[in-house]
C-alpha cells in the first residue's frame, strides 16, 4: 500500500514494539521462504520428469526419422558401392567422382541461382500481397477471410498444382491461346512448357505462400498507432514504409526467403513435371542416381546440396538478426 507513513506520527505505539513486531514478521517470512524452497526443489525434480515424459515421444520420433536419416546420408557418402546398394567400407571414391563431374557442379550452381531468383521474385511479388492483407485491410474479419483464401492452396497437392500448369503452358495451352486471341503474338510461344521459364513460374506459384505468410504475420503485429504517429510527424507514405514498416517486417522477409530458397533448392517433382526431360536440378540428379542403384554417389550429391543450402541460408541470415528480433 502507498500510505506507509513513518512510526513517529502515530500516538500510542512505541518504537521498540514496532521494531519487535517487524522482526517477528520478517523472521516468519524467511521461514516461509525456506519452506517454499524445500518444496520447490522436490517439485522441480517431479516437474523435470513430467517435462521429459511429455517431450520424449516427439524427440525420439525426430531422432529416428530425421536425425538418423540425415546422419545416414553423410555416412553412406563415405561408404563403398556394391551391386545391391552399399557396404560400410570407408572410401573417398564417391567424392572423387563428384569432383570430376562438371555436370553436377554446373547443376548445383544453376539450382543455387535459380532458387535465389525465385526468392527475389517471390519477395517482390509476395510483399504487396502481405502488405495489402495486413495493413490495407482494416477489418479483422475480412483480414482473416482473405488470408485463408490466399493460403488455401497450401493445403492442396503441389503435384496437382504443378500438373495444372500443363494446360496453361502448352503450345496450344490457355496462355498461348489467350495471347494469340488478344493479338500480342502471332505464333504460339514454344518457351512456355518444358523450359526454365515454365519451371520458374510454376515454382513461384507453388511456394510464394511461404513468403507471404511470414511477412503477413510480422506486418500484422505492427501497431497501427505507430503508423499514424509517423504520419503526424510529417513522414510521407514512402518514408513511413521505409522507416517504420519495412524494418519491422524484416524477420518475416528473411524467414520467408529461407523457406522459399530451401524448398526450391530441394525440388524435383515440379522440375520433372513442368520441365519435362529438358530441365534438371540437383534433386533430379539424386533421383536418377538412386534409380540406377548408385546410392553412395547419390548420398555425396545430397551432402553438397545440403552444404549449398546452408550457405544460402547463411547469406540470407545476414540481412537480419533473427534471434534478436523475434
Amino acid at each position: 500500500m502507498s500510505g506507509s507513513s513513518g512510526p513517529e506520527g502515530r500516538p500510542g505505539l512505541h518504537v521498540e514494539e514496532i521494531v519487535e513486531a517487524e522482526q517477528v514478521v520478517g523472521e516468519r517470512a524467511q521461514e516461509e521462504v525456506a519452506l517454499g524452497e524445500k518444496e520447490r526443489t522436490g517439485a522441480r525434480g517431479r516437474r523435470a520428469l513430467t517435462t521429459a515424459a511429455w517431450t520424449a515421444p516427439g524427440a525420439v520420433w525426430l531422432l529416428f526419422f530425421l536425425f538418423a536419416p540425415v546422419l545416414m546420408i553423410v555416412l553412406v557418402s563415405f561408404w563403398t558401392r556394391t551391386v545391391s546398394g552399399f557396404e560400410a567400407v570407408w572410401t573417398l571414391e564417391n567424392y572423387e567422382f563428384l569432383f570430376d563431374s562438371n555436370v553436377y557442379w554446373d547443376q548445383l550452381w544453376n539450382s543455387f541461382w535459380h532458387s535465389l531468383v525465385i526468392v527475389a521474385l517471390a519477395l517482390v511479388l509476395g510483399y504487396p500481397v502481405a502488405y495489402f492483407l495486413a495493413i490495407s485491410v482494416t477489418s479483422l474479419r475480412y483480414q482473416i477471410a482473405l488470408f485463408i483464401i490466399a493460403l488455401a492452396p497450401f493445403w492442396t497437392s503441389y503435384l496437382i498444382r504443378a500438373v495444372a500448369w500443363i494446360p496453361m503452358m502448352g503450345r496450344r495451352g490457355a496462355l498461348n491461346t489467350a495471347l494469340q486471341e488478344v493479338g500480342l503474338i502471332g505464333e504460339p510461344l514454344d518457351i512456355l512448357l518444358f523450359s526454365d521459364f515454365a519451371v520458374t513460374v510454376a515454382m513461384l506459384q507453388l511456394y510464394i505462400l511461404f513468403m507471404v505468410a511470414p511477412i503477413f504475420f510480422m506486418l500484422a503485429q505492427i501497431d497501427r498507432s505507430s503508423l499514424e504517429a509517423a504520419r503526424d510527424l510529417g513522414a510521407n507514405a514512402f518514408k513511413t514504409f521505409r522507416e517504420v514498416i519495412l524494418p519491422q517486417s524484416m524477420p518475416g522477409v528473411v524467414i520467408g526467403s529461407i523457406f522459399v530458397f530451401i524448398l526450391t533448392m530441394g525440388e524435383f517433382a515440379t522440375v520433372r513435371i513442368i520441365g519435362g526431360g529438358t530441365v534438371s536440378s540437383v534433386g533430379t540428379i539424386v533421383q536418377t542416381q538412386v534409380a540406377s542403384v548408385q546410392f553412395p554417389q547419390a548420398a555425396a550429391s545430397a551432402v553438397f546440396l545440403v552444404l549449398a543450402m546452408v550457405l544460402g541460408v547463411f547469406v540470407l541470415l545476414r540481412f537480419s538478426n533473427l534471434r534478436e528480433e523475434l
Partner: protein
Amino acid sequence: MRRGRWTKRILAIYFVLFLLFLYGPMIVMAALSFQGPQGAVTFPMRGLGFHWWDQLVNGPRSETIRETAIRSLELSVVSGLVVAVLAFSLSMGYRRRFRLDGVLFYLIMLALMTPGILLSLGTSFLWRYMETETSLWQTALGTNVVWGLPFAFLIMVAVWNRYDATVEEASRDLGAGGLRTFREVTLPLVWTGVLGAFLFGFTLAWNEYDRTALLAAGENTLPLEIFALTVGSVIRPDLYALGTATTAVSLIGVGLFLLVAAIVLRRRARGVSEPREEYGELAGENGGGLAAGASASRAR
C-alpha cells in the same frame, strides 16, 4: 488521405490478380476435366460431360487409383493422429523451460527445413542398413509425420500462448487432481488446436510426394501414382479429374475444420463474455494485481 485510398485500390486489384495466379491453373484444370470423350488436355473444349470422371471411377486405371487412394487415406489419417499426439505432447513440455529445450527446438525446425528428397533418401538408407523388410508404415509414416510435426507444434505453441494457465490452478484449488484437471479443464480448452494439428498432419501427408518417393516399395500412394501418370505416360483429362478430386478432398477437410473452429470460438466467446462483463469493474480495479499474480505463479 486520398493517396492512401488509391494505394489501397491498386493493392486490392493486385491481390485479385494474385488470386487469379494462384487459382487460375486449378480452375482451368477442373474445367478441362469435363471435356467430352474426344477432348484433349488443352483447350478448346470438345463437348461437355462426365466422360473422364467416369473413366476415373470405372476406367481401366480405376482399380489402381482406388487402391492407392485408400492406402493414401489410411496413411494420412494415421499420420494426422500421430502428428496431433506428438505435437500436443511436445508443446505440453514446452510450457516450461527445460534443459535442452533450445536443442530440441532446433531439431523441430530442422524437420521443417530438411528437403523431402533427403529425408526419404536417408530413411531408405537407414532401413537398408538395418537389413529389415519395410513397408510404408515403417518408413513413409515416419517421414510424413516429420513433415507435419513442426507445423502442428507451432500451432500448439500459439494455442498455449493465448491460454490462461490460471484456470488450471483454480481447478486444482477446487480440489481436482492433476489428471482430472487435464481432462476436464485443459483438454476442452485446447482441443481445437489439437484438431488443427491433426488436419495439418493429414493434409500434408495426403499431398506429400518427395517424402514418400524413394520409400514405397511397390506400394504407391496417390501422389506417387499421380506422378507416375504424369511423367510415365500420356496425359489424359482423367488425370485432371483425379487432380480436381484430390484437391476437393483437401479443401473440404480444411473447410470443415474452419467451420468447427468458427462455431467453437463463437460459442466460447458468448459463454465467457457474459460473466466477465458482470465482474468488469472489479477486474478492472484489481486487474494489475491479478495479472502480476498469474505471471508470478506461472514463473514458479
